[in-house]
């Protein structure tokens, strides 16, 4: 498939566990974004990469959230010591020219 893929699609974590969410962007896309979408809300920006460089992490809600893209392709969003308020859908998006942004299917995280 040519689209953005994310895994896992669903994740249930007990409070206090660490989780890692993966994003495979469209091949060749330089820019990669992570967004958090709470139930019934619009997506909220978390962080942005251009190639392997994390250029904007202003949306990460706490130091428990960490994202990386070491080779400028696949990205991982890690959440340490998960809390109930972290329950949301985590969306990854990629773009090539910085204009059209393509979203993945999302990972639905439920923290119990």
């Amino acid at each position: 498939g040519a689209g953005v893929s994310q895994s896992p699609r669903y994740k249930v974590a007990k409070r206090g566990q660490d989780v890692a969410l993966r994003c495979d962007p469209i091949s060749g896309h330089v820019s990669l974004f992570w967004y958090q979408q709470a139930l019934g809300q619009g997506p909220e920006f978390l962080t942005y990469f251009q190639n392997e460089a994390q250029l904007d992490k202003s949306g990460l809600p706490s130091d428990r959230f960490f994202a990386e893209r070491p080779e400028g392709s696949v990205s991982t969003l890690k959440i340490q010591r998960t809390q109930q308020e972290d329950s949301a859908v985590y969306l990854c998006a990629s773009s090539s020219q910085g204009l059209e942004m393509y979203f993945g299917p999302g990972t639905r995280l439920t923290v119990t």
Partner: protein
Amino acid sequence: ELKVEQNPLFLSMQEGKNYTIYCNYSTTSDRLYWYRQDPGKSLESLFVLLSNGAVKQEGRLMASLDTKARLSTLHITAAVHDLSATYFCAHSPGGAQKLVFGQGTRLTINP
């Protein structure tokens, strides 16, 4: 504060009717986007508007942009049931790469 406000937030309409969703944003913007989201699904890009006065149409949907008023509209013509979804507008504030989204408009079209 970066804000994007949509209205209405909920819209129930009959097939065949016309309606408009409004999107106001608080800062200057390079780009304005409209997305569609079906329940449990991701975001589908509908339109990207780049300049003042831009108008784009696809089927029964038409989007326009007024950068001076910081307003975009999504007009639905002769609505059909399969347009039922949540519609989001988003803008990229002043040269930033990230998007700031509105709260979404949940549109339900009844036969």
